Structure formats: C-alpha cells, structure tokens
C-alpha cells in the first residue's frame, strides 16, 4: 500500500514526510476496509435481529473447538507480527526480522488450513448454500441465510489472509536483502497494520458466527 522506495522519493521533502504519508495512507485504506466488511456486518445484524432462533440453531452446526483454536492461532500471529515490526524498528539483524515474519506466515497458513478443513466438512454435511443445501433442523431457509453470511464473511476474511500472506512473503524477500532497518521500516509497519486489522475482523466474526445460542 505504500510507496516502497528505500530512499526519499523525488516528490517528498524528507523521510519524515514520506513516512507520515505512507502511514496515513495505510490507515485511510483500513478505514475503507472497515466499511467493506461493514456491508456484511450490516446484513448479519439485520438478519440476526429478524431470525434470532434460526441463527442460534444454525450456529450450532459450526465447530467451536476449531473456531476457538483458530482465534488463538490468529492472535498469536498478531503477536509475532508485532514483534517483526519491532525488530525492524530497532534495526535488528535481517535474520531476526525474517524469523518473526516466517512465524507469522506459518501461523497464518495454519489458520487457513483449519479454515479449509472446516469448509470441506461443511461441504460434506451439505451446509453450503445452494441446490446442495440439506439442512435438517427447523427454519432451514433462514439457516441457509446464516450459512450464506458465514461463507461470505469468513470467505472474504480468508481472502484477506491470503493477500496478507502474499505481502508477508514479499516482506521476507526484501528483509533477506537487508532492506529494512532503523531508517526504513515503513513497509513492515504497514503490512503489520493490515495483518492486525484482519485479526480484528476475526475477533468479531468468532463470537458472531460460532457462539450464537450455544448454551
């Protein structure tokens, strides 16, 4: 999201201005992301208000253990990401930056693997909306609405994770070349902001999708 010239680009006065511009740009971009997910959250809130019972029943078909595990995995990846950013800020050796970035990537991949497993399971259970939807419980139609939202929201979230992994892979390559240090760490910071944002989205998705009507 940032302009990634290591030196000060020709149109900036100094590195300070360049860094501030890149940071502001990233935050403004994240604001658009809030609204992007906002459309789905609006749909969710409206339908949950209309069909609380159906949402409760449908939610029970999700696997809480996997959901909780994934939450923990993602939170841990946020920690490693924060440490990667810190390593770049303090001018640590490239190997250390790379180590934290790689850990973040490993955790992110774990999250996606678990998610994929969940999706496959839903597919076997016939909980994918569409002609193959075979939901046995009451309010099957409203449950289909719930699963449409489930796949829409987690799918969009997973897509963001994939993009995040791509960004991390690129960061690793640049870090190996020793590009990041005390003087240049804006790209690591901005990718970090993105990664944490994706984490925050999941922090809301988890209770809204997995924990409705559990008791």
């Amino acid at each position, binding site marked *: 999201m940032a302009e990634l010239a290591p030196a000060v680009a020709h149109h900036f006065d100094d590195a300070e201005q360049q860094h501030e511009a890149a940071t502001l740009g990233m935050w403004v971009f994240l604001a658009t992301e809030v609204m992007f997910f906002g459309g789905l959250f609006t749909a969710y809130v409206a339908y949950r208000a209309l*069909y*609380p*019972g*159906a949402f409760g029943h449908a939610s029970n078909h999700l696997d809480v253990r996997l959901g909780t595990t994934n939450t923990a995995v993602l939170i841990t990846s946020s920690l490693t990401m924060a440490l990667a950013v810190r390593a770049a800020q303090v001018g640590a050796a490239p190997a250390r930056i790379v180590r934290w970035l790689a850990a973040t990537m490993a955790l992110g991949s774990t999250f996606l693997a678990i998610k994929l497993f969940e999706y496959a399971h839903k597919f076997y259970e016939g909980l994918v909306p569409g002609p193959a939807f075979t939901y046995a419980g*009451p*309010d099957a*139609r*409203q449950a289909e609405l719930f699963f449409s939202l489930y796949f829409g929201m987690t799918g969009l979230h997973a897509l963001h994770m994939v993009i995040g992994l791509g960004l991390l892979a690129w960061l690793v390559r640049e870090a190996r070349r020793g590009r990041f240090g005390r003087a240049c760490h804006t790209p690591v910071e901005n990718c970090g902001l993105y990664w944490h944002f994706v984490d925050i989205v999941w922090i809301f998705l988890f209770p809204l999708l997995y924990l409705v009507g559990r008791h």
Partner: protein
Amino acid sequence: MSFPLFPTAASTMATRVDALLFFLLGVTVFFVVLIATLILVFMVRYRRRAPGERPPAPRGSLPLEVGWTAVPLAIVMVIFFWGASIYASLRRPPDDALPIDVVGKQWMWKVQHLEGRREIDELHVPVGRPVKITMTSEDVIHGFYIPAFRIKQDAVPGRYTTTWFQATRPGTYDLFCSAYCGTLHSGMVGKVIAMPPRDYEAWLAGGAAVSAAEAGRRLFEASGCPSCHRPDGTGRGPSLVGLFGSRVALADGRSVVADEGYLRESILNPQAKIVAGYEPVMPTFQGLFSEEDLMQLIAYLKSLAAPAAAPGSAR
C-alpha cells in the same frame, strides 16, 4: 392528440399533494428567479470595463451568512412537516377502508376483491369510500402507482405492503408499474375504474365467484389445517378464532400483533414465532401456497375475528 400539462386529481390525497406541490413550486420559482435575476443584473452592472480593474475584496458578513442559512432552514422545515403529515395519513389506512388484495407478477396486476371477484390489470373501486390495498409480488419488486390518486407503493416479494386511497370522481385512470421489473415493465399497466358505490356493488355481484374468505376456508380445510387448529383451542396448534388483530404472546417472551405479515410468516415459516404454550411442530407451507392462496387464507382467518372485537383494536 391531447396535450395535458397537469394530471387529473381524483382522490382525497391528490388535492392535498397538489396543494403542497404549488407551495413548493412557489418556493422554487421565487429562488430561481431571484438567483437568475441577481446573476444577470450583476453580470451587466459589474461587467469588467478596464483590463486592469481591481474590485475591492469582499469582507464577508456574518449576519448575511446566518440569514441565508436560517431562512432556507425555516422553509425546508415547513416543507418537511407538511410533507410528513401527508405521508402519515398515507401510511395509516382508515379502519373502515375496503380491503382489496393485489399481487404483482411479471408483467400483470392480479386483483382479488374480498367478495370474490378477481380481475387482471383492472381495478374496480367505489367512489367516496376509502380502499386499502394489501399487496405483494410473486417474483421481483413492482410498483403500484395510480398517478390520478397521487399514490404509489412498491409490492415486495416475501412480505406485504399497503397503501390506501379514496376516489373522489368516477372515471377511468391509469395504473402503472413504477418499479422497473424487466422486459415488459412498460407493459405492466392497467386501468383503475372508479364507480359510484351502487354501480360498484352491482359490478361486484356480477362476478358470481365465491368470496375470498370462502375460498380461503376451502383451502384451509383441504390442507388439513383444522386437525390442529381447532376452534375450541384443544388442538396441537392454537385456535385461530379472533386471532387477527389481537396480540399474541410468543414462547420466547416477546409478543406480536397478529397482522397480515405475521399470519403470512406463520404459514410459510412456522418456526420463526412460536406461540407461547405450543410446540414447534407445524411444517412449513412454503412452495405449497401461491401468493393468492395466502391472501385468501388470510382473508378467511380475518373472517374468524370474534364478532365483539372492536374494529381497529389492533392499534
């Protein structure tokens, strides 16, 4: 060829809407003329006479700014309250309104009169009596629009919407579909025939069809509903006598007013709102009843209202 510039006004609402229109036209003409005149006068009066001319910089004026904020604000508030009062009456049909059901479908309007007559792309109504239209759609969104009555309401699939009018003049008026609905959207037009009440009664009687409630009762029995919904309340489902318009306590502690939308939902999606004290055992009837069937069923359920219930007790 006729060349009208103003639509016929043939309902009680039309005169109210037109009055507001003339007020708004007055406001518009006043401001457009004011601004245009000022611009033209200034353009000529203060045209540049010498290339090096340097007019004094404006100093700004707080009173002026406040003034031309406050005056428009006052005007738009008048417009808001005036418009809102019309809309409030439009959204609240009189209790004694004659109910007529309308179903929109690509690309026709199907009308069901309570007494039984059904028509397509024609709507016969009595003059001088409020008529309440309850509508829905079988496919996409349609717009029920009678320009001469100045009313419009979208018919939305999956739910009921209502509007009402009281025709003031006998005649034949356009009925349009105003919400774009596909290929023959502009062919989804019909006629509203407003007739003196006596002619309307005669027309109604000419149909010789069974009433909507009676058709609904036959459906009700043919679908096996009475086996659970017994009138004395001893069945597995609640009694439906006197249900319409009453307040129903639900199993989850909420309560709802049993209006058309509630009845429709409870037939199609019985699990959504379970009546307190009953088990969620009713199967869904989605896909088994057409929108017209549903409206007949509801007409029947309405006819079961306890005779003592005062009209309008729903509110």
